[in-house]
Every structure is written in structure tokens, then in C-alpha cells.
């Protein structure tokens, strides 16, 4: 049977402006987590849980790392958790990124706080001998995080919206600089995903989606996404958050 997990906070660091890196330990979660899955975290005093992606998995030490942006009350409160405290979590939830050993070169495209779930994926791809190229977009210089970590995985291009670091503009502005690839994986705000899937039309890829969730386990139908114009749909929390690009309509 599934159950709520008690996760122990191991480390909390502010790694960029309003961006928190938190390491949590739990044996079950660390042993079973897949890149692209999320934890549904219960923050004290809130009626709804907060979905946060798994950014890194350390199966030896039973650690999971999450990265989140301090946005509203829930994430601000989450940022105040200290090592030794426990967090009630559901998960690892949803379907993560799937890849095949036959892939040769993979392009990772992340926007802002959509970058974290691509990190562990990139690590796994590299371990499988698949070449990784990353395009990472941030608002501005003080928001940049994990650039060095992605550099270790492969060629990494950074863009900022205001041009204060890397190239100026959006991730889609630099896609023509990227060498050939056979698959892409992308996570970020919906407008970015729309632009990316349009720009890379004809390529095969996977995208990870965000939507406001209720139960987070597939029962309440809050976070659905249409699959056609005839009433077909998928549940982001359960069937996703990762989908093949042609599976859903953004």
C-alpha cells in the first residue's frame, strides 16, 4: 500500500535569488524516485499540498534534492524548514522522463524553476553514454543556478531574459545554435513550452507540465490537460507531469 512519507530535512541552501535547494532523506523515496517525478509536500498550515519536482537522487545515502522558488506563502514557509525537521510527503508521484539507450544526443531545455527536474535526467543520460546538450533560460543573472552542474553533463548554453548573463532573450532564440540531437526534454512555464514545441516541430520530445493540483493522486480532476478537441484528457498528476509532445494540447 502507498502511504504518506516522513521526509527528514538534511540541508537547506539559498543557491540563487529566492531559489532554495533542499535535501530530504527517506529510504523509500530515494530508492524508487525517477527523474521527472514530483513530491507532493504538506507545508504546515496549508489546505493543499505543494508539488515540487525531484531534482536529484542519491540512492546510496537515501537523499532526494528538490529546488524551489520562494513564490507565495507555501514556498516561503517551506524555505524556513531547517535540518532535522520532518516534512510529510506523498510520492514520488507521477510518470517521469523515459529514455532509451538507443538515443545518441539529447537536448535539455529548461526555463527558470523548470530546470531542476532536467538535472537528474541529464546525469542518468550521461551515465548511459548519451550525449547531453542543455539550454537553460533564467530571468536575470541573480536567478542563475546549477550552470556548473549542467556544464559537467555537456555543452550548456545560458540565456537570460534581460541579457544580464549569457545571451539575451528566450531559450528559443538559441535553438538554432544547437548541434543535431534526436530527442529533446523540456520543462518550464507553459508559454515557453508552447514556443519550444513550435520551434522544434517535427522533433520527438517530452515536456513536463505544471498545473494547480488538488489531491495530486488522480482522483479530483483538477489538473487535467486536453489530448484532443473531443473531450479527451490526461491527468497531469498521475499520467504526467511528463508527456510526449504530441500526446497533449498546450
Amino acid at each position, binding site marked *: 500500500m502507498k502511504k504518506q512519507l516522513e521526509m527528514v530535512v538534511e540541508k537547506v541552501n539559498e543557491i540563487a535569488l529566492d531559489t532554495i535547494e533542499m535535501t530530504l532523506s527517506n529510504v523509500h523515496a530515494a530508492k524508487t524516485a525517477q527523474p521527472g517525478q514530483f513530491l507532493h509536500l*504538506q507545508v504546515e498550515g496549508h489546505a493543499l499540498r505543494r508539488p515540487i519536482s525531484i531534482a536529484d537522487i542519491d540512492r546510496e545515502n537515501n537523499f532526494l534534492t528538490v529546488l524551489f522558488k520562494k513564490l507565495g506563502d507555501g514556498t516561503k514557509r517551506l524555505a524556513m524548514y531547517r535540518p532535522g525537521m520532518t516534512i510529510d510527503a506523498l510520492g514520488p508521484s507521477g510518470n517521469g522522463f523515459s529514455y532509451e539507450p538507443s538515443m545518441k544526443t539529447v537536448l535539455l531545455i529548461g526555463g527558470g524553476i523548470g530546470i531542476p527536474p532536467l538535472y537528474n535526467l541529464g546525469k542518468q543520460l550521461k551515465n548511459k553514454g548519451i550525449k547531453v546538450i542543455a539550454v537553460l533560460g533564467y530571468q536575470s543573472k541573480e536567478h542563475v543556478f546549477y550552470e556548473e552542474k549542467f556544464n559537467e553533463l555537456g555543452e550548456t548554453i545560458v540565456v537570460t531574459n534581460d541579457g544580464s548573463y549569457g545571451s539575451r532573450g528566450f531559450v528559443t532564440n538559441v535553438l538554432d545554435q544547437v548541434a543535431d540531437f534526436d530527442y529533446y526534454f523540456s520543462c518550464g512555464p507553459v508559454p515557453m513550452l508552447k514556443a519550444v514545441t513550435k520551434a522544434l516541430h517535427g522533433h520527438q520530445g517530452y515536456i513536463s507540465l505544471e498545473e494547480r493540483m*488538488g489531491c495530486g493522486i488522480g*482522483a479530483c480532476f483538477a*489538473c487535467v490537460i486536453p489530448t484532443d478537441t473531443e*473531450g479527451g*484528457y490526461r491527468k497531469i498528476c498521475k499520467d504526467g507531469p511528463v508527456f510526449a509532445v504530441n500526446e497533449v494540447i498546450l
Partner: protein
Amino acid sequence: MIDLTMDLPGLNLKNPIMPASGCFGFGREYSEFYDLSRLGAVIMKAATGDVRYGNNTPRVAETSSGMLNAIGLQNPGVEKIIENEVPFLANYAIPIIANVAGSTLEEYVKVALAFNKTESVNALELNISCPNVKEGGIQFGTDPDMAATVTEKVKEASNLPVYVKLSPNVSDIVGMAKAVEKAGADGLSMINTLTGMQIHLETKKPLLANKTGGLSGQAIKPIAIRMIYEVKQHVTIPIIGMGGISTAEDVLEFLLAGASAVAVGTANFQNPCVCPEIIDALPRTLEQYGFQSVLDAVGKGYEA
């Protein structure tokens, strides 16, 4: 031994706890967390005549001590529910209550008739109160005559006991309750969500795609308690109470107000095991306040 059983029209409950409609789907997801046969009963997600996609997203927003939802009755349609979902729930030895929704009188009757075909459904919950559906335009839940008409028609069509689910978005809840009792309702279910709105400061516009949504969770409990307390004194049919329940103490409060059984909705989202946890805690809570059975406590809040 504290007696948790409760006998209601069509429902032989081993305990008075059931998940509320729309907050539990058709049980599959929660069956991965615990054995559903522990529940007193289960209330399925709303069924309409045909498949419905529902509203655009965002469909939920968090509020102080609660949430707003505007799912818009997304469901595969009554036939698919009977074919694919009812057999799954029938594996568990618990009464099944089907939540019946529609935008027209004919649609309600069609759904009610369809459920006659299955032997596994034990009662209907007539959802005349969903605030999130715009088409149809007929306000069954806020007009006592319309509420009575739909109750009568569904009673005629169905061979199952009918619990009418009342909307709290009315000024005279007692009048609504009396109207549906007179029309033949076997029981009441209350309350559905209260219509609300949240404006998103970033966009300066309503956050929900549907603009308005139904408020549920702890925030609405005092309203549910007040309405059940008032209604119970004017009707003889039993009440299934709901609205913000998350603990055994909340359940006792509903029983005292006049509910004979309760449903738990929003609390499942925070804690998927909340129903069995309440069932485990209930005997002690009843005992602590001097009750030997669930029945003992029903209506004690207003009886002299």
C-alpha cells in the same frame, strides 16, 4: 464496545464515515492507500447523461482553511461509469452511493434510470447543487419548486432511495429541505460548496478559469453545522452531513447537530488516509463525550 453502525434508507452502514462526492473519484486511487472495505460507504463522483470534459484550468485555488474548485462535473458519462467504475467498487463490501447530476430534468431522469440497471448501487445522491456548471441555466438547487420537481421525477424513475444534496447558496435552507422532503426524498445530504472567487494579484483577474468556484474545507464547517442544526428540527428524513470534516471530533459535532452519517471531502487531499484514521478514532471520541453509539449522539445538540 462503542456501536458505530447506522441504518439509513438503502444503506446499512458499519460506521458513519464515507468519502464525499468528487473528492474520491471512483475510489481507485485511494484503494492504493487502504482497503476501501473499511469505509462506511462510498459516494462516487458525479455522473451526467453523457461524457463531460468540464471547465478549463486552473480549476482549483487554495484559500484560508479551504479551497475553491470549479471542476465542472468532468466525468465519462453514466453508462461508462456503470460499465467501468461500479464493478471496481462492487469488489468491496460497502454500500455505493451514486451522485446524479445534470443540466436538465431529462438528464437527471436519464442518469437515475441508468443506475436502475446495476444491482451494486444502493442509493442515489441527487446533486441539485453543483455551482460550477453554467449550461442549462436552470437553478434546481436554489428554487424550492424546481428542487421538488426534480426530486419527484427522479423518485418516479428510480427504484433506489434518493438523498437530495442541498446547496448552501440559499437564504432559506429549511424551506429547501422541507420542499424536497415533501417531494419524496428519502434523505438529505448537506452541504455542497459555497460559491466564491479569488482574484489573482499577478493578473488582476479571477484566478479560476471558471471565475467562480465552490468553497470547501474547514472554512465552511460552521455553516454546515448551523444548516444541519436548523434543518434537522424541521424534517424527519435522515441527513448525511459534510463540510470541512477532518477529525473524529468534527464528526461528533455533525452528529450532535443532527447528521446521521457524514462525508469527508477536501480533507482527503491533505491526508489520503483521513477516512480510516477518523474511523479508528471515532469510538474513543464518542466514549470520551459519554456516548455508547453513533445513534446516541445524533441530534443531541438541540434536543432538550
